[in-house]
């Protein structure tokens, strides 16, 4: 396995381990705490590029006393013109003289054994002499350095100051990368910056960029599938109940449970897809209320669907009849065609309205999830998806699934009502219903695609 290795260095608590977690999409990597000296080992993780190449990242302890280290390095070889790298090596050879700088020594060893260095900067910090000294020490390692500006969201106003400071030290290839407010485009910029600094690894990094983009887009696409599928499940579910209060109440509870479970399952899958912990979510139960199933036989949608279906079935029935007429040499004198058309029409009526009419006759009613609940469900999932897309794996804050969402015409798909009418016409599309079947499955797939495109 061939490695392209990167040492992740920086001052204590600058966000080195957080950067590792976010790049590796691993919330469990290392230890993160608001304390100096949390990371005391050099620990590695790798992004696999292909079967034989990987990008290895090494998390290092914080450089806590760069001022002292730089003074020691500067004091070596007085009156001699010796390069920084020899000073670093000399220091490591005489490390026993500096027991208080063991952690710094680990960082130096990682620097010397890596191809590239990420120097993580906490932008919230003022520009202090110790950071200046850290950068100077890094320059001794004769390795390309990419300063990574962390906490850009919280301390945007400091970016200019830090850029100026970095430019003074000849570091121009910096990137902004907030570990908490993650942007995938920022991650790609890191790899692109690496390409500019490591010309001989350009094609490998191209491969890595393409791979990460594909993984990101696959994940997003899958997440959209999950959300759209949940919506179909919830919007097309309907429970049959006797038309009395206790039966309706019992069925409503079951309906609520099944929709909440479906949502919860979807949330779990989304977290798993984006590789977050299940405990990262703080869930507010979806306020599912029940709406009575409205079957208006004479609504334009129903008539239209019915008309098309009826026509289709008459034609098919008549078609079968004609075939029979032909096959028996016309002796049925077209009777088969006629009866086929009638059978086709009756079949159409039975297929579309049998359950509803039967329920009506038996005094039952259908319960379904009401429009407002579905709106909240849809928006909650979209909000969650956006959050997951922008969440770093070092975040500690819990993700909240809100119920008090602003619902307006712009926040919902333009064809919302059409989708809803369609979904309620196909209860067989929901696995939350007992009698799910595969009929009209192709139409379900088409609608799923449409909903995915809406996200």
């Amino acid at each position: 396995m061939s490695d392209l290795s990167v040492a992740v260095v920086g001052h204590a608590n600058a966000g080195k381990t957080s950067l590792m977690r976010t790049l590796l999409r691993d919330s469990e990597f290392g230890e993160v705490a608001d304390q100096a000296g949390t990371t005391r080992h050099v620990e590695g993780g790798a992004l696999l590029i292909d079967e034989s190449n990987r990008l290895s990242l090494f998390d290092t302890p914080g450089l806590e006393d760069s001022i002292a280290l730089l003074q020691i390095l500067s004091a070596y070889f007085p009156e001699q013109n010796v390069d920084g790298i020899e000073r670093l090596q000399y220091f490591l050879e005489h490390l026993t003289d500096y027991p208080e700088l063991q952690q710094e020594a680990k960082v130096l060893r990682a620097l010397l054994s890596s191809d590239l260095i990420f120097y993580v900067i906490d932008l919230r910090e003022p520009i202090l002499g110790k950071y200046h000294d850290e950068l100077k020490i890094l320059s001794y390692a004769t390795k390309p350095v990419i300063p990574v500006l962390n906490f850009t969201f919280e301390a945007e106003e400091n970016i200019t100051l830090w850029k100026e400071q970095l430019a003074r030290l000849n570091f121009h290839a910096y990137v902004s990368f907030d570990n908490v407010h993650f942007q995938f485009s920022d991650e790609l910029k890191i790899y692109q910056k690496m390409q500019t600094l490591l010309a001989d690894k350009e094609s490998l990094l191209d491969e890595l960029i393409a791979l990460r983009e594909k993984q990101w887009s696959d994940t997003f696409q899958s997440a959209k599938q999950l959300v759209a599928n949940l919506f179909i499940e919830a919007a097309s579910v309907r429970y049959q109940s006797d038309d009395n209060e206790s039966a309706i109440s019992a069925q409503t509870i079951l309906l609520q449970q099944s929709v909440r479970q479906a949502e919860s399952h979807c949330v779990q899958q989304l977290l798993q897809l984006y590789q977050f912990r299940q405990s990262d979510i703080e869930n507010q139960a979806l306020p599912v209320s029940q709406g009575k199933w409205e079957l208006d036989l004479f609504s334009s949608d129903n008539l239209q669907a019915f008309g098309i279906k009826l026509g289709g079935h008459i034609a098919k029935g008549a078609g079968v009849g004609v075939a029979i007429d032909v096959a028996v040499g016309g002796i049925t004198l077209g009777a088969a065609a006629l009866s086929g058309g009638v059978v086709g029409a009756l079949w159409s009526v039975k297929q579309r309205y049998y359950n509803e009419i039967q329920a009506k006759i038996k005094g039952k009613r259908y319960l379904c999830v009401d429009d407002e609940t579905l709106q909240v469900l849809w928006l909650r999932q979209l909000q969650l998806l956006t959050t997951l897309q922008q969440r770093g794996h070092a975040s500690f804050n819990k993700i909240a699934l809100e119920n008090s969402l602003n619902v307006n015409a712009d926040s919902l798909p333009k064809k919302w009502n059409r989708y809803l009418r369609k979904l309620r016409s196909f209860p067989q599309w929901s696995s939350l219903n007992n009698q799910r079947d595969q009929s009209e499955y192709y139409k379900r797939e088409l609608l799923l695609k449409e909903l995915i495109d809406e996200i």
Partner: protein
Amino acid sequence: MIGGKRFVVRKRKDNRLSHFESRLLAEGVRAVEGESPSLSTSISNAQSSSFEKLLLLRAKHDQNSPQISALFSHFHKVTKNLYSLFAFILFFFGATAVNKMMFTEQLSTVNFFWAFTLFFIPNLFMFVIWLLLFLKPEMLQSSSMSRFSLGVIKFFENRFNKAESEKQNYLALFNCYFSLHFGKFLGRYQLSKLTHLLWLSYFTGATLMLVLMLATHQVDFVWQTSILSSDSFQSLTQLLAFLPQQLGFPVPSHEQIQQSYLGATDLLDAENRRLVWSSLLISSLLLYGLLPRLFLYLLMRYLFKHKKKTFQLDLSHTYYVQLRQLLKPNKTTLGITDPDMESGKSSVQLGPDIGTINKENHLPESFYPIGVELSVKQHSIAKSHQVLSQAPSLEPMINVCDYLAQQKILVDLKHPKCRTVVLYVALGRLPDRGLKRFLGQLTSLSELSFYLALVVEKKQSKQRDSDWYQLAKEVFIPLDNIVLIELQGDKHE
């Protein structure tokens, strides 16, 4: 039955599944597992194989694999048997149609073109419909043919294979198998194959019956028209006869066509005419009905097999994206490469909460103020505090931010103007070893008393409070000498 065995036998023989079978099996495992994959099967050499290979291997070794294979073999067998049944029924229809149309007891003459029309117009009509649907696969996929096939298969399963249909995961695997075979990728070839097979059977039945009946019955062939001219019929017959003639079938000559016009009563050449018209009818059935359908059937069979060989799993599906994370994660851990040999830093909170105990502490009347690593804002807060606490003219506050400033302060404090030094630091700043070293150097200067003034911009964790307390303790600044400076509106304590 034969097809059903093939799936299992091939697997047993060399333990290798074909391209399509292996993917079908993977889809079967997906159907059984539902939406959330698990990693119940351990796969070796995961790093050196592609995800698809791993996924196929996983399916092969999955504990449900034998059950899935058996059910898929069963579905294959059912499909094959039903196709054979449909083919037989259509064969029978074809034979019956010939019998009914041409060989009734009352008729000894057959209207050739009417017979031809009855056979070929529906065929042509259905061919055009098939072609349209074939060119629009999504229509064929959701067509009546598809629903009809599935409906019949379900019916037969429930009626004749009840034991099979009660097996675990039956429904999921049924849907999986048939949604693949009648789905977007293969559906149009599968259904086209069926369509042409049925018409082929129909024409085979009709042709065989026709040959049989013509061999055992004597019929005269005539043609008639009310609105077309006899010349048109002549041309049409010659056009129809062109291909059979080229292939050596006897076909009616110009004179024989004229003689067969209804009402012509030339009995001299009647036997010969019967022969050539029969030959034309049989060869027409063969060349314009049976053979094209046979060709299309074979073509669809070939395309179906070819498509099966190129079938790809939709790896962008949520299930596979999740499975990829389990089976071939895009990351790996490299472990600790440079371990810490010393004991880790204690994160135990030491002493009381600074924020609660030191607010009332007061600084001496005069002191030497030193800011340590303060930001502009923090420096300004500290200076305001200094102004409020002592005569402003005494000493300007220096903010020590680098090595040179540290050295200057250390030199200055060797000859202090004041015996009390107040060190202003930001509570938000991490008390690291660098700070500890510098504060330690300061406090090691004898005869000076040190205070630690913590500038609070925003509330910090208790751990941070504790870290400062620990640092103060380590550099010998007593707890009583720690002061908290909070920003309260525009006022500072």
